[in-house]
């Protein structure tokens, strides 16, 4: 199997792998069916199509596969269902495929497991194959537990396939894509090394049995019972009303974040996006290795939701990109990333490119938007955060291109981050760019000098301010405004002199400060910032009471100052290119 150009089509039972194989075959590529089917006659038939002797029960699976078309110069492949070669000596077939990381894998999945299962069930009952007419099918009762078992099995195995074949040339396609999108077959042929474009990728015989054609409601005699059984279960999704073709509210653009970013918060939760707009963690620092959890079940589900356009984990009212509609178009994504998306990969073989270090929440301030008291990690808590930090530095930092220090707390007040910046030798991480997030009160020239070995890696800083006057600063932050402005001037100088590329100041908009937004822009420009970020007030756990939040949340339509705030936002200055209204953008009517 090492000499020829081999490929494998992996799929679950009832996934219509036979349709894909037929298409591949019609493109002139040698491919056979289920060499390890439990039925010897099917095995024999499959083997005969490629001139192979059939697999005999009890033989070693790997040894059998090693005979598969070793002399061929042309691509040749076979289908392997999740359930096949699962036990006994045959199971070494899986070891064989797993260990050959040069074998291209085509992973055929189904978007709608109910339709998949039903179609096969109808086929089984009616003996009809491609052109099943569900209208002629007598209805039948469905055993919910049996169906649930099928769903569970496929879902678990699908994840396993994505994980174990992440280092193989891997292409995941769904049956739906195969029958609806002409470019899918082209991609398959390219992937397996066959001359693409030589085939009619939508032959007449390819009839799609769509969800609505199956008419599950009519075919399943106990449909209501089945629906109710699966309500609020992992498989609920197959029973909800589905939008017809073309009505799928898929979002324009792709969010690359879950594919390239990893953050670790103060609770040890691992996240692929900011907690404020994607609340679901993908893992926990205590649950295992960082690299392993980067591809956890939840991480993969989140990436799936980006690829299918549903963005179901994302809070579209909070996420700035969703509020503003500024997700990058597929074409604007870097080439490498475009490839990942085209291959349908949700398990990443690359480690995260962007790291957000948030495990030390230490800060010299206690801003009411963030915490109700000072937090300085000490003792055991400090040691725990330090251990996390060491794992991040050893496991993830070498592969990272960007590190955000810190997502929660202050990069300068934290001993862990301060020492990290002091001891980092930028020459050892030539591709790394660091963004320092701080309240700026201690980020002065002296501090900057202590980071001298890291200077070339520090790309910029983001300073949280929330005020343009000493009085409001005292209310919202509690430090010396004068000192802050002095430090901002220093950082502005660093930017002007090209020592850092980026200097941002940020402002959480509230009832007590929105009137200072214009002055804030003035201050930012005066000190030399490159960007000014305004953000919505979010009620974090352990911060405001409900009443206090309601009093401050001027972005809410029932706030007494809301109308005034909206009018304030209409000023042309907020349209400037250096101003980012992020998740408040929707409150501003765009100018003419």
């Amino acid at each position, binding site marked *: 199997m090492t000499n020829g150009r081999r490929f494998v089509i992996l799929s679950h039972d009832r996934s219509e792998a036979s349709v894909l194989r037929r298409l591949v075959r019609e493109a002139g590529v040698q491919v056979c069916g289920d060499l390890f089917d439990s039925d010897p006659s099917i095995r024999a038939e499959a083997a005969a199509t490629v001139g192979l002797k059939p697999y005999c029960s009890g033989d070693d699976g790997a040894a059998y596969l090693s005979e598969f078309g070793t002399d061929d110069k042309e691509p040749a492949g076979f289908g392997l269902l999740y359930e096949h070669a699962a036990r006994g000596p045959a199971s070494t077939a899986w070891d064989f495929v797993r260990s050959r990381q040069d074998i291209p894998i085509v992973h055929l999945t189904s978007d709608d497991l109910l339709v998949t299962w039903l179609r096969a069930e109808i086929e089984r009952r009616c003996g009809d194959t491609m052109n099943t007419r569900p209208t002629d099918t007598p209805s039948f009762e469905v055993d919910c537990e049996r169906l649930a078992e099928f769903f*569970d099995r496929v879902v678990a195995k699908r994840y396993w396939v994505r994980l174990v074949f992440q280092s193989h040339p891997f292409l995941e396609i769904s049956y739906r894509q195969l029958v609806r999108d002409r470019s899918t077959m082209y991609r398959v042929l390219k992937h397996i090394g066959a001359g693409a474009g030589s085939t009619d990728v939508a032959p007449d015989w390819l009839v799609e049995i769509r969800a609505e054609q199956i008419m599950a409601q009519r075919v399943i005699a106990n449909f209501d019972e089945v629906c109710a059984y699966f309500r609020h279960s992992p498989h609920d999704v197959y029973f909800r009303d589905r939008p017809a073709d073309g009505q799928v509210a898929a979002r324009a653009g792709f969010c690359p974040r879950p594919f390239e970013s990893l953050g670790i918060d103060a609770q040890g939760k691992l996240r692929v996006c900011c907690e404020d707009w994607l609340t679901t963690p993908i893992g926990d620092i205590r649950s295992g290795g960082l690299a392993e959890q980067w591809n956890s079940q939840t991480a993969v589900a989140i990436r799936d939701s980006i690829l299918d356009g549903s963005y179901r984990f994302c809070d579209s009212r909070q996420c700035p990109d969703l509020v503003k509609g500024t997700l990058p178009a597929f074409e604007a994504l870097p080439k490498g990333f475009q490839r990942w998306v085209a291959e349908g990969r949700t398990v990443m073989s690359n480690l995260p490119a962007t790291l957000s270090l948030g495990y030390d929440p230490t800060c010299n301030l206690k801003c009411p938007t963030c915490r109700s008291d000072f937090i300085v990690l000490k003792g055991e808590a400090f040691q725990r955060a330090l251990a996390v930090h060491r794992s991040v530095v050893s496991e993830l930092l070498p592969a990272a291109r960007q590190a955000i220090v810190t997502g929660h707390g202050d990069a300068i007040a934290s001993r862990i981050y301060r020492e990290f910046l002091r001891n980092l030798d930028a020459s050892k991480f030539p591709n790394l760019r660091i963004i320092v997030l701080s309240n700026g009160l201690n980020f002065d020239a002296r501090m900057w000098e202590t980071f001298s070995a890291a200077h070339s890696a520090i790309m910029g800083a983001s300073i949280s301010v929330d005020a343009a006057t000493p009085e409001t600063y005292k209310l919202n932050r509690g430090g010396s405004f004068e000192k802050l402005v002095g430090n901002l001037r220093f950082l502005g100088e660093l930017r002007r002199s090209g020592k850092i590329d980026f200097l941002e100041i940020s402002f959480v908009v509230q009832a007590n400060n929105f009137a200072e937004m214009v002055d804030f822009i003035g201050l930012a420009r005066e000190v030399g910032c490159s960007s000014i970020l305004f953000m919505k007030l979010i009620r974090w756990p352990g911060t405001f009471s409900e009443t206090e939040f309601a009093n401050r949340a001027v972005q809410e339509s029932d706030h007494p100052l809301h109308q005034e705030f909206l009018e304030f936002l209409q000023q042309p200055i907020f349209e400037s290119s250096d101003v980012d209204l992020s998740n408040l953008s929707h409150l501003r009517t765009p100018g003419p």
Partner: protein
Amino acid sequence: MYGEVFQDELDARREGLGFPNEVFETGSDGASYLSNNIYEECAGDDELFAIGFKLFYMQAREPGARTAWRYLMHHRNLRIVHLTRDNLLEAFVSFVEARASGRWLSEVDKLLRGAPMHVDTDECLAFLDQIYSYRGWANQAFCQHQVFELSYERHLIADFGSAMTQVQKFLGVPPLRLPVLLRKQGTAPIETRVINFDEVRRALRHTIHAIK
């Protein structure tokens, strides 16, 4: 803290609730029961800092009862303690042992010594896949809630005291030192508790549940 108020068996439900609370009637509405009997009943009680109950993924799945899930998912202010097992095979074997012995819990000072069990590999795999599937679903279904992931092995077994402190902190209740009342059923290594362990290992080999 109540026990399994949606347990299949009426007696077990009664036990999970304690006298004099009204037990959930089979076939009645799960959401109303939670609203009227579990949460609301105690709304005016100043002595109570928090109230909760235990629910397995597969409980409250019958007609009527199942609206309890809708209630929980819709009430985003509820805090969820999501208790998970890292070692699902261990969980399955404990389940098989408990089923065979009829004893689902054992007290700390009562050591159990059962005979090794035979594990049906198909049943085992279906169980593991089901838990895998439901665990992923729970993460998604409650992603807008405040959730505390409590690992049986890494938290409860490794350091019960600190795990309980964290849970109490999460729930916003004054911390109390809580005694360990129950111990896990099988304390011997799983290899010695399963007669056909090698067969199980082989059956799980090319799955997400492979034994490391």
